[in-house]
């Protein structure tokens, strides 16, 4: 009984303000996830920790809200014909392996270099990966916008054409999102990388979605929808692991879920109103803004490790708060773009309906 009491003592007291805060953060995170297939998690975990929730409980509870949210989002988007379940499950299973390996690396870094080393590793991963992938996604979206081909079907990249042309007997699987057979030897490492990123920065989709688009050749809408299946598979496995350790605070998970299910439904609806390149715009914008947020923290961890001179207490505080504020801004901007797209799409639809009626 004492152990149980000790575990329960890790769980914070919830008042009305905390509940409303978690609900709202959940809603915004869900809105973005419903639209681009992931995102929001990187705000939820620090968001919970700012309430005094221990880091591991925050990660575990976030995970336990993620899989039911992804399930609801995937079902919704499957109704719009956007989900490739087979691709999602195959990548999800390899992502699970990536999560376990990523967590193992994290543990090793933590035991060798302590908390500051582990935090530095997470921040540098954020900055490097988001700079490369986010920059690429945003550049591609910009090029599509500039060329005026936003209405046209997305073109396959040269890499995707090559991947689809390779035939490795015994490993070929047909995927409806690609309308082609590809070797699972390509999907496995991509899924693995998605899982590793999820274990490191909590948002595997920043690798998963772009890799499905640019490496495999899936359309943006299907890639972001299938990412929800990957998130479900990864989240379920991860939650089970954390729950077995008694780390899930089910109240936190379910309150965030309360808000995020409102958001994910709306985000999913939003995808039916936008041109596919908007998925890339929202994803790219969030990735690049988050990159700046994490970059601000790098000097803090370098100072803690003694690599650079110690920073003043005020400087650390300013950097931490600015970093958190930029992160929140990233998700809010993403949510704003999604809501605006729904608003504009619905208005255009109403005008078109009126015109059709007046012409008939």
């Amino acid at each position, binding site marked *: 009984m004492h152990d149980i009491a000790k575990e329960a003592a890790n769980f914070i007291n919830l008042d009305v303000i905390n509940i409303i805060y978690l609900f709202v953060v959940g809603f915004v995170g869900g809105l973005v996830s419903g639209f681009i297939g992931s995102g929001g998690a990187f705000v939820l975990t620090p968001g919970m920790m700012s309430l005094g929730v221990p880091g591991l409980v925050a990660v575990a509870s976030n995970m336990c809200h993620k899989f039911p949210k992804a399930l609801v989002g995937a079902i919704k988007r499957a109704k719009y014909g956007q989900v490739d379940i087979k691709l999602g499950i195959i990548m999800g299973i390899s992502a699970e392996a990536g999560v376990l390996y990523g967590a193992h690396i994290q543990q090793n870094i933590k035991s060798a270099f302590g908390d500051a080393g582990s935090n530095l590793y997470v921040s540098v991963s954020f900055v490097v990966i988001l700079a490369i992938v986010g920059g690429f996604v945003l550049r591609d979206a910009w090029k599509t916008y500039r060329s005026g081909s936003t209405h046209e079907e997305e073109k396959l990249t040269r890499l995707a054409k090559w991947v689809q042309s390779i035939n490795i007997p015994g490993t070929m699987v047909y995927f409806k999102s690609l309308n082609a057979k590809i070797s699972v030897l390509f999907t496995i490492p991509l899924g693995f990388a998605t899982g590793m990123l999820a274990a490191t920065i909590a948002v595997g989709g920043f690798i998963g979605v772009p890799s499905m688009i640019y490496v495999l050749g899936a359309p943006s809408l299907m890639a972001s929808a299938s990412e929800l299946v990957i998130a479900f598979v990864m989240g379920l496995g991860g*939650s089970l692991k954390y729950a077995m350790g008694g780390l899930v605070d*089910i109240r936190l998970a379910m309150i965030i*879920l309360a808000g995020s299910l409102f958001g994910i439904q709306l985000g999913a609806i939003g995808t039916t109103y936008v041109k596919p390149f908007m998925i890339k715009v929202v994803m790219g914008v969030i990735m690049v803004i988050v990159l700046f947020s994490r970059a601000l923290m790098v000097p803090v961890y370098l100072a803690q490790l003694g690599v650079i001179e110690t920073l003043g207490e005020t400087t650390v505080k300013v950097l931490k708060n600015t970093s958190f504020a930029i992160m929140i801004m990233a998700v809010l901007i993403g949510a704003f773009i999604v809501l605006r797209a729904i608003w504009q799409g619905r208005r255009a639809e109403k005008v078109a309906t009126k015109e059709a009626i007046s012409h008939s």
Partner: protein
Amino acid sequence: MSQDKTKKRPVVKTLLIGMISIALYTALLLNQDIINSTFARGGLYALLPIATAFIFSFIHGSFTGNFWTSLGIEAKKRKKTEGK
């Protein structure tokens, strides 16, 4: 008139599922001490939070979906009207 205006919105269904959802959340928050101590035991007790997550996602997910539909916020209608 356009079809969507005449289409019935699932208001009653939304209210009913909404009440079930609120009941679930009320039960969770009113019994948080016992739920926390049981669910955090680890081992096989891990199935309890997982099952709870599935139940909440089913009920609350259905509620939120119907909620937006009731407000008239739905997916864009496809242009194709043929082939019922």
